[in-house]
């Protein structure tokens, strides 16, 4: 199982809120996806990405619990994120001055990383499939991601 998360900072031009987007794969298959405006206004791109990583984490935990019913136990589930600061923040629970204000419920991701249930890793923007849920894309990029999300044309 793999989770991908991304955020669009300042995605909403009117209220200046950011957008969370995440998708989860089970093996090769896309099983769950989301594109949602965040409830709070983020002050930095990192904060927006961090909040989106936390929401991706909740979804992964739910799927993990569902899989446990079928005796499938997964640990160190990778979450791919294209922001290195988010990875540092979740691995190292030090209070940085720029992230003091982030609500405590977004920090729960740290707890799971320390218990080795989740593992946050870096992914380059080229292979960040969650991009399709963030912004309108060009034809080439759109078709490329679409193919990687396992979407095809049926012939019937």
């Amino acid at each position, binding site marked *: 199982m793999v989770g991908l998360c991304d955020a669009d900072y300042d995605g909403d031009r009117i209220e200046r809120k950011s957008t969370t987007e995440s998708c989860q794969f089970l093996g090769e298959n896309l099983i769950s996806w989301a594109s949602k405006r965040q409830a709070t206004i983020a002050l930095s791109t990192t904060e927006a990405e961090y909040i989106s990583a936390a929401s991706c984490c909740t979804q992964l935990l739910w799927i993990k619990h569902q899989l446990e019913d079928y005796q499938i136990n997964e640990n160190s589930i990778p979450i791919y994120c294209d922001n290195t600061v988010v990875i540092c923040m979740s691995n190292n629970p030090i209070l940085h001055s720029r992230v003091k204000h982030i609500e405590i419920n977004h920090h729960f991701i740290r707890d799971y990383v320390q218990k080795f249930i989740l593992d946050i890793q870096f992914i380059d923007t080229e292979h960040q499939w969650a991009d399709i849920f963030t912004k309108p894309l060009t*034809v080439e990029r759109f078709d490329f991601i679409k193919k990687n999300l396992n979407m095809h044309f049926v012939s019937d």
Partner: protein
Amino acid sequence: MSMRGELKFFLGIQINQCKDGVYVHQSKYTNELLKKFKLEVCKEMNTPMHPTYTLNKEDTGSKIDQKLFRGVVGSLLYLTASRPNILFSVCLCVSFQSDLRESHLTIVKRIFRYLKGTTNLDSFIGNP
């Protein structure tokens, strides 16, 4: 009504079960939508949204029927069940519900023009 046999059609979602996996698509639903909103004849598009376009609150432009817009967007929301690729553009339209102008409807029409070209697109769930 018999409920036995292989699952083929459920709540507008068509399911094709093959040897290599399961194909999930809503081509019948998509065609019905195009028919319902009288957009069967339109120019096809490659993407559901222009790469540089942003949707804004607007004061200019003529007002449009709010009820119609909500109906269209609601129908599109159901379509995201098998089409993650239009999720972003549909969600953007969802965030506008009142004081709608012509420009909002243009965005929705563009999504339909994309759908027109890709009615038989499906999500594939392969066997492990």
